[in-house]
């Protein structure tokens, strides 16, 4: 199946108002065929509303939605070639796992032999072989999640929507499922549209992602682009931790009062008095606080002259005891100028 030249989804000035509240505000968006696209943002930013409008559960107040070149704005969910994996899985409790998964085929009156064949295929794909006769309430959270996925995929939709599907799982399982989902998407080759508020998840899985805020998309791009070049303070703060520097401190460090961001992992902790080379920024500080996080330690540095910066350093040679004993030590913070990212725009 080749990649379609038509975008999988096109939003044309889509708005969704709930009375006075603008859940989605005049959004334009294009999602490409075959990509893993994530909609990222805090609660209430409009990302879930957009997903529901693509699925057909919600109608836009104004604007049109196109799926693969077809205007689907007025179509109900059952007439769209889209399937959804719900946040609470929405498995039918009175049906077995097998009946749940094959539901879409049953509705479309696919003959029984073919249904059973495709059911077996799906159970293999999501790694739940032999579970067809179980009932949903006999499964664990992770297993239910996979049934929900199978139930959606069995219909071979061109587009799969996932609404924060991993939210209810514990961390280890979540990380494992993230990799599985990505691998399934690449194998099956269809477009995945993924909604989440977890920026780490978004960065891990996406080909491209859109950062939502107050019903608008603040920035759209690849994970690297968004992480390395955040457009606005909001994006800088939401995607990864970041230090935002402006005003007097900015003037001191880079010569102008413009706001810029610098990622905590880009700052090096050096002994006081270390030479500052060409192309580097430096500021003297003392360690105000630290948190030992196993893989790395996060330091809050109080700057001479006021202000603070968050610095993150991998614990290559540092033990927890070492880390915890540096409180109050004076240090010099040095980093490459090129890592400063100018942050413009409103948030």
């Amino acid at each position, binding site marked *: *199946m080749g990649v379609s030249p038509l975008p999988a989804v096109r939003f044309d000035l889509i708005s969704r108002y709930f009375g006075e509240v603008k859940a989605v505000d005049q959004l334009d968006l294009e999602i490409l065929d075959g990509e893993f696209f994530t909609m990222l943002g805090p609660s209430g930013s409009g990302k879930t509303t957009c997903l529901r409008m693509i699925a057909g559960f919600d*109608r836009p107040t104004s604007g049109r939605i196109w799926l693969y070149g077809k205007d689907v704005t*007025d*179509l*109900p969910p*059952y*007439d769209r*070639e889209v399937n959804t994996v719900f946040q609470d899985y929405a498995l039918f409790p009175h049906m077995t796992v097998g009946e749940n998964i094959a539901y879409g085929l049953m509705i*479309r009156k*696919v003959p029984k032999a073919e249904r059973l064949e495709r059911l077996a*295929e799906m159970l293999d*794909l999501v790694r739940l072989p032999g579970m067809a006769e179980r009932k949903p309430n006999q499964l664990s959270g992770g297993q239910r999640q996979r049934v929900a996925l199978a139930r959606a995929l069995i*219909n*071979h*939709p*061109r587009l799969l929507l996932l609404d924060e599907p991993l939210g209810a799982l514990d961390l280890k399982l979540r990380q494992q499922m993230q990799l599985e989902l990505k691998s399934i998407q690449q*194998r*099956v*080759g269809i477009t995945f549209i993924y909604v989440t508020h977890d920026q780490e998840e978004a960065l891990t899985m996406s080909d491209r992602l859109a950062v939502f805020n107050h019903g608008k998309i603040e920035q759209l791009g690849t994970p690297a682009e968004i992480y390395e070049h955040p457009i606005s303070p909001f994006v800088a703060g939401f995607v990864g931790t970041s230090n935002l520097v402006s005003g007097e401190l900015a003037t001191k460090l880079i010569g102008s009062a413009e706001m810029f961001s610098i990622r905590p992992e880009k700052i090096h902790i050096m002994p006081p008095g270390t030479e500052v080379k060409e192309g580097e920024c430096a500021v003297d500080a003392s360690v105000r606080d630290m948190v030992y996080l196993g893989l790395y330690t996060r330091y809050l540095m109080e700057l001479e002259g006021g202000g603070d910066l968050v610095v993150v350093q991998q614990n290559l040679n540092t033990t927890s005891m070492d880390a915890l004993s540096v409180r109050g030590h004076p240090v010099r913070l040095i980093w490459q100028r090129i890592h400063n990212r100018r942050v413009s725009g409103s948030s």
Partner: protein
Amino acid sequence: MQNNTPASTSGQSKPPSPGSRFSTYIYQRPSLFLLLLLGLPLLWMGVVYLGSLITLLVNSFYYLDDFSGLVVRQFTLATYLNLFTPANLDIVRRTAGMAFAVTIATAIVAFPLAYYTTRYASPRLKGFLYLAVLLPLWSSYLVRVYSWKLILAKEGIFSWLIAQLGLDGALNFMLRLPGIGGSSLSLSPIGIFLVFVYVWLPYMILPIMAALERVPKSVLEASGDLGAHPRQTFRHVTLPLAMPGVIAGSIFTFSLTLGDFIVPASLGNSSFFIGQAVLSHQGTSGNIPLAAAFTMIPIVIMIIYLLVARKLGAFDAL
């Protein structure tokens, strides 16, 4: 996996069935859907029920022409004035008095059972007792009334019991009392009183149980901790907190007694209660206006009662 093209399952090549098209039509018009759902029940309740209530009110302002025996549809207060004849006032007094007595009695009988169940019974016993109170409600109301005809009959089990206990004299004395006595227990106000208490008892027990359940044990313990004897705790803490339940139960017993005609008809003599008056007036004489006017009495009494009860805080706990 990628052999199956989406086209084979898109189903878009088949035209949607009429059911599907209709479903889509409704889906796109949520208000129409609501109208379809709500229309029929609302129409029914509005027209059949509310409409009837309105005709009841309207009818009470008409009057029955004695001469022709027909209902004259003209606004008048004559029918209401008719309620104030001594005979009719007697009926109202009798019914209200009975309702009052029944309410007090059911409250007294119900309270120990409700109190024991909520305060002292183990969870299993409590479940059993709760069911035991519900059970009579599930048996036929009419049959339960009928059972007392059997029990209170002159030669029946109650008389037998009285005779065994040697209380014949006391019973006869009671039956000779004016106003509440009668020819036999099964045909007297005392009998009516007993049956009313019997049939409405669960309606009093359940709200009291609910109110007592809401009293946290810690409150009673706190009272004891502050030095109150159990009796004082009961008087100052438990009883006031149970009152809303008693009042809620009294609403049932009062309203049900005011409107009932089955019990007085089965166990009474010729002195009417409001329910019987309503039934008789709308029956052979076709005097629906008077029947309607009579019905207004329990309604008005209950509205006043409900307002007073609300003032006293019976609904705060609900």
